């Protein structure tokens, strides 16, 4: 006969409600773990879908995800010429926030070389439509953008039409991703309205004209160079490269690193930058909350088990009186505690399972995390029951006699 279950059966309402309450708490713990895993997965998503071996960025930066990095587009040819590099292609990244249907709408825009066989870092497998096929005004969006094929969106100076939809892909800050050609991305990023260009040009011209001691020809040349520089849109955030089989990553990194103004990062280094730098704080924050919530759960379980032991002092005394072994009494208390933990854990788990798709940020439920939490919950329940067990062990069988 299981005394723990009989006791619970006697006031199952209280027990079940408490367990479910704890389940909500554990649900938060589970989802926080899931949010952290989601953050990691989101942060790595673009890195992984790009599939490059090498990321060339501006010197002294951790670009392009953690910091802004600007390099010249035509470096791709120099990088491609390094022995061991199989392919190199430029990428441009920018966060865009526009107004859509009266609401702010944020997404992450990637510009890539759309020409088949020449680009890297374009959209992963499409689930609808087709890839970008021309240099301008076409767009591939990720599912999360909620844009049907044929929909248009106004960016910078032009309208862009959705021609393809790719699966769920988000930026490291969780925004959905859209792809345009590199030329379009540069336009959207750098090209100003004609009026603004005219203003800037007039300002520069006035400044050049004001410089003393310039001849007419020099002045004209300077104006043209300055206009070329300031109006140039041939800047990208990174050039990514794939290495030929058997190529030595370290050597190629060193070669590129020796060039002025550049830094070459391996995929591992990017992972390191993303996890250590960007997610570490979130990890610690979430981890701390999880620990606090688990401690609270432990305290609650321990209080409940303790008070339910107090309620049973007479029962425990009677059991001792009629000669029950200590293990019978310990098992009764411990099993209740464990059962409470089990119900709470599965309540929390089912809750998160059913709702995790509806969270604003991705919740990634990793089996190992869930298993570890399960063991932790069991340990907490065991420890929490000790106070009650200690109390029970001290009960004098003579206490069963009183009226």
């Amino acid at each position, binding site marked *: 006969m299981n005394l723990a279950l009989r006791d619970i059966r006697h006031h199952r309402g209280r027990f079940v409600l408490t367990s479910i309450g704890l389940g909500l708490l554990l649900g938060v713990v589970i989802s926080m773990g899931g949010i952290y895993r989601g953050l990691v997965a989101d942060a790595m998503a673009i890195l992984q879908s790009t599939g490059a071996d090498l990321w060339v960025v501006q010197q002294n930066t951790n670009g392009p995800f953690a910091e802004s990095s600007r390099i010249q587009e035509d470096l791709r040819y120099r990088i491609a010429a390094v022995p061991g590099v199989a392919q190199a292609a430029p990428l441009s990244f920018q966060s865009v926030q526009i107004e859509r249907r009266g609401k702010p709408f944020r997404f992450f825009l990637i510009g890539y070389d759309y020409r088949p066989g020449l680009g890297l870092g374009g959209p992963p497998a499409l689930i609808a439509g087709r890839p970008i096929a021309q240099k301008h005004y076409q767009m591939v969006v990720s599912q999360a953008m909620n844009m049907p094929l044929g929909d248009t969106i106004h960016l910078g100076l032009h309208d862009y039409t959705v021609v393809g939809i790719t699966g769920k892909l988000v930026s490291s800050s969780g925004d959905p991703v859209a792809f345009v050609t590199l030329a379009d991305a540069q336009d959207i990023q750098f090209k100003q309205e004609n009026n603004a260009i005219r203003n800037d040009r007039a300002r520069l011209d006035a400044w050049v004209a004001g410089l003393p001691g310039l001849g007419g020809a020099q002045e004209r040349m300077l104006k043209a160079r300055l206009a070329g520089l300031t109006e140039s849109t041939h800047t990208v955030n990174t050039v990514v490269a794939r290495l030929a089989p058997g190529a030595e990553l370290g050597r190629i990194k060193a070669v590129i690193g020796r060039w002025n103004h550049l830094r070459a990062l391996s995929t591992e280094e990017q992972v390191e930058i993303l996890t250590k730098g960007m997610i570490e704080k979130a990890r610690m924050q979430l981890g701390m909350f999880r620990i606090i919530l688990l401690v609270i759960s432990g305290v609650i379980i321990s209080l409940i088990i303790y008070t339910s032991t107090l309620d049973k002092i007479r*029962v425990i005394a009677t059991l001792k009186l009629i*000669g029950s072994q200590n293990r019978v009494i310990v098992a009764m208390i411990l099993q209740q505690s464990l059962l409470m933990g089990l119900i709470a854990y599965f309540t929390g788990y089912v809750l998160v399972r059913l709702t995790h798709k509806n969270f604003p940020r991705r919740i990634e439920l990793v089996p190992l995390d869930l298993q570890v939490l399960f063991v932790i919950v069991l340990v907490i329940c065991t420890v929490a029951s000790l106070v009650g067990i200690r109390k029970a062990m001290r009960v004098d*069988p003579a206490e069963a*006699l009183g009226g």
Partner: protein
Amino acid sequence: MFAVEIAHLTKVYGQGETKVVAIADASFQVVPGELIAILGPSGSGKTTLLTSIGLINEPSQGRVVIDGQLLADDGWLPGVDLKRVRREKLGFIFQHHNLIPFLTALENVMVALEINGHSRAAAKARALELLAALNLSRRPHNYPAALSGGEAQRVAIARALANRPKVILADEPTAALDTENGKNVMAMLKQIAVENRSAVLVVTHDQRMVEGFDRIFEVRDGRIVKESKG
């Protein structure tokens, strides 16, 4: 061999100012099947005597022997599993039935059997048999709260009898019952003594309840002052 044997049993509570000698130098022997009444006014030490014999109250001095096994000799004998002796050889009945509120009548009897190593099926069979013998077959699945005082006390008796104990200790088993139910319980205890060959020690302060007992001990201020035949 005696079922119960006490010699120079003394129990002192507290020290110094608060010292109370609850039992002073009590000695007697009880044979199997004997029905003993312990009579005395409130505070005379009846419960203390019973709980010392029942191995839940450590004697200060003197000896306690149950079924030939020496258990206390100026305090518990070291290395003895008192719980085991209690569950195998002793049965307890109290003024308040002390049933476990979250177990049914049947389960209350079964639990005493299961902790003594009986299988669930064996425990159930024996418990049903006991409930039937105590005229409780109609309510095996009632919780104690849904039993009358007399029924609850009979379930408690069934539990005390479960492991066929050598000794049954009853402390005011009729105090919470009306006269008729009280008489019934006493009659059952007599029957048990005869049929089970158990030594039955019943504490009471109701003179009218002790007719038909084999011997009556009268206790005053912790001393057995009179022993008489019933």
